[in-house]
């Protein structure tokens, strides 16, 4: 039992609160990579509540250390000494700036990128790398996954997004490059498996397969590289995105191989 410091339920509760990775320090079993990391790496989380709050219940009263939480955020009271509220952060690139309506798509797109989203229904999507990805590239090697993108609901099921903006701007706040969103995991179960590895027997076999996986990925990466010479610019960009993803997964596997297995209590 003492090997299982954190139950799955506790983890999920943690996620429900705020994706709060710092809350999860206790999730590392004893002996976790002791040699390489002396204290748990600092985590950073970004959460986005789109399209507004009921202002009269949201805006805190007062300022400085003596502010009062309002009705909607009152649950933060117990951790108030860790909370700093910042107001008036409206971002100019989320304004129309000549692009007309479509605030819902534009605001989410600008949130972590600080870039004016290119108004398009699909062709030539262009935004910018988001801050979480910039940071993940710098410090992501300290954790099992460089970054974790979670969502709470599936993408839109039909087409009409926001006044000429592709739905891609509405369903992603994290972007790996101006043209490639990170995608989100909406299943808590799969997010858990990604973080902690698949438990039990299945997980053991997965780790055994690491070398096979790397060999397969090597092969397809080479395949994709040679294809790049045969296609035009747009398709080359698509293949570059593919290659980059293959390499990221290869890196993850290499990291995973060096970590001890995580024992997870059965359901």
């Amino acid at each position, binding site marked *: 039992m003492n090997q299982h410091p954190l139950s799955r339920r506790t983890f999920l509760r943690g996620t429900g609160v705020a994706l709060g990775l710092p809350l999860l320090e206790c999730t590392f079993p004893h002996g976790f990579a002791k040699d390489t990391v002396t204290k748990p790496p600092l985590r950073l989380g970004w959460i986005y509540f789109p399209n507004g709050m009921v202002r009269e219940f949201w805006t805190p009263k007062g300022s400085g250390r003596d502010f009062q939480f309002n009705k909607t955020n009152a649950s933060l009271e117990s951790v108030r000494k860790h909370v700093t509220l910042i107001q008036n952060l409206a971002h100019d690139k989320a304004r129309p700036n000549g692009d007309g309506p479509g605030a819902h798509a534009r605001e989410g797109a600008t949130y972590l990128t600080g870039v004016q989203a290119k108004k398009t229904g699909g062709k030539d999507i262009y935004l910018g790398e988001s801050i979480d990805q910039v940071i993940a590239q710098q410090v992501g090697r300290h954790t099992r996954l460089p970054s974790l993108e979670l969502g709470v609901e599936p993408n839109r099921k039909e087409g009409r997004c926001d006044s000429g903006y592709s739905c891609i701007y509405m369903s992603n706040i994290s972007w790996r490059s101006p043209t490639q969103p990170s995608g989100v995991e909406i299943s808590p179960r799969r997010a858990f498996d990604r973080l902690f590895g698949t438990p039990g027997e299945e997980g053991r076999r997965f780790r055994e397969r690491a070398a096979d996986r790397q060999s397969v990925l090597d092969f397809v990466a080479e395949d994709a590289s040679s294809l790049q010479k045969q296609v035009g*610019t747009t398709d080359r960009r*698509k293949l570059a995105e593919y290659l980059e993803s293959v390499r990221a*997964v290869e890196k993850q596997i290499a990291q995973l191989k060096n970590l001890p297995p995580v024992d997870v209590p059965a359901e």
Partner: protein
Amino acid sequence: MYRLGTLLVLLMGHGSLSASEPFAMEFFESHILPFVKKHCISCHNTEEAEGGLDLSRFRKVEDLLANRKPWQRVFRQIKAGAMPPDGQKRPAEKEQQAILAWLDQALVYIDPKKPVDPGRVTARRLNRTEYNHTIRDLFGVSIPLANDFPADDLGYGFDNIGDVLSISPLRMEQYLNATEKLTSALLLKSDQPIYDEFTEAVFFKWTKSRPLNSSDRGWEIIPENETYLEFEFPLPGEYELRLYAWGIEKGEEKERPLNERWLETDALYKRDPKAKAPVEATLLCDETVLGHIPILPGNSTVAFKEPYTLRFTTQAGVHTIRIRHRFPRDMSPETIESHLKKPLLAPRLGVRRVAFRGPFRFANAKLTPAHAALISTKPAVGQSTAEASRAALKTIAEGAWRRPTTSTELDQLVNFVEKHLKRGRTFTEALELATQAILLSPKFLYRLELLPADAKLGIVVPVQDYALASRLSYFLWSSMPDQELFQLAQSGKLSDESVLKAQVKRMLADRRSNAFLEGFFGQWLGLRKLPDLSFDAKLYTEFSSELREDLRRETELFVASIVRENRPALELLKAEYSFLNGRLAAFYGIKGIEKGADFRKVSLEGTPRQGILTHGSILMLPSYPNRTSPTRRGNWILETILGEDPPPPPDNVPELAATQAAQPKLPLRKQLELHRTNPVCASCHRTMDSIGFGLENFDAIGRWRDREQDQPIDSVGDLPSGEKFSTPRELVNILAKRKDDFARHLISRLLTYALGRGIEYTDRPTLDAILKQTRTDEFRFQDLIIEIVLSRPFRWQSSEREEMR
């Protein structure tokens, strides 16, 4: 001005997309060049190129026509008044208007003498549906692996647009997991059966009406009756069916509930293997009899302890399992006859639960070539491992990549296998890894349409036959081509027009085209959104998820009949029939159909309904959970059906709620009228609201009503065109008169879905031609699809041009 302009378009129908008006080429040299010289060139020249814009390169009108992107920016900047910048001399208003008017034309000008530019389709990653279907058809399995992948992004209203379908590490990881899961299943590697499920009998359906004496403890089946349910088997092969059943010798206890009898008899009953079976169970998979099992007397609890088992072989996919009552083989015909006279007193077949496990082996199930190649290839005597693997890999890769492989590609795969053999893996293990590599390759995950090696930039080339086979199959089946398409591609006949026509007909008749019906109509009309809708249960007591499902089914059956029977697309709006079951007929107030009736074609003549605009499903989509929204309904019809794009409301308009608070007693119609007193709003709302109010007789869930609360519904209205209507039917018929607008929009939606890219101004001649070609026969649906398949953008592509910025 802008909004007035929109109003004019609404009045006249589409002006902007029809044939080009005369276009004055010489205007470029007479006006544009002097304008640029005077107002722009001092900043936007070769040396300075402010904002990356160099206008000095454009010397002739042809330069502009060949590279219009920078001019789009010029147009927008001038129109917005942002250029020339503050502090510079401003052009005269009249001059500026003339420049803008000409640029507006130039940006979409198409030279009628030049061949149509077919455009270019970005490599399309398989979306989740396509991935699932491709794996299904390649390996003959029914394992929806892609359901675990992150959702696909949408562009231009569809989930198959190459430009927005991206790959991220998260998705790559899921691909890796999915391929491992798949090959492991294909090789039956796990000790545990992949499929191990049970279903309580009470969830089974009845072919005839439900008999007496059935409770949550099981069904009791009387003579000449059966119970059935659909099951989806993940793999082909041999499964074990376990039937938890008991026989009932005398059925006379019909008036007493099963639970009650169970209480008094459970303790007494043990199954007696020496007893005589009063009844048999006949088990069927679809229409095939799997076997007859004599069932011993007992009760529901005894049955639960020990199942009767039967092994059978099936193909993967959805199959209907039936359990049928049967008299014992040795029962005399006279006895059977007397039982049939009083079936309620005859011996019964009790069923508590049905379970399946498997497959244990593939037995004599039919395997696809790719599956067979993976599991049964072994080097023959005297054959090298390389020769053996080469043949298998060729079969798997050519199916997965949907084209012939090159010898280099095969060499690479064979070497990969050899490498793993040297590392000590078995032949099948090495082949399995190679299969994973094939399925993770971009050649599988994307639809790459590789150009011939000698293709030059900027030229237009036909889509190669194998790529054309995939264009067809992913358009109509959301899956890979079948053997027939591959063979036609191989023989070079597929690009033949008569062959293409015949293939479209064949493919639409095939069940796989359900994917087209679901994918196209589900997204064009928004039917995919229906499962997410719910309504205030206090206001709409008839609403249930069952009703919502029925309504969706109605529209699905309706569009399927339009497509499969090649009916005029206009019938979508004007059909005097629909497809209803008993429940829906009652909901619509249509008499003469019994309550339990299944879906059937029903005439709508003499009812207030006609076409999809009066389907409950469509009426629900733009409604709020607690009321209708005439504005949203009107807007939905303008956008979805007529292809108009009313501009979104300006920022400073108060919500309806504000108006409502001021005048809470007014009916909705009067409130909206008040809301529209602002002339800026009125220009658009005039049309939207008129259409929406014309449908007010249908409430938020699509039920007919004459009054709302205590106010009578007023569905009289008129359109800016002067046309008047006083019933929903009259309104529908006025809208249906705009045949060309409707058909053009439908064609443009179909073309988007077929190509997986947005429609550009260069596609205008294609839309015009298809419209003209199909108009004489009222735009029959298969004709539309055939014309799209024969069109230049579908069969040709331009190799990519490096565009100047």
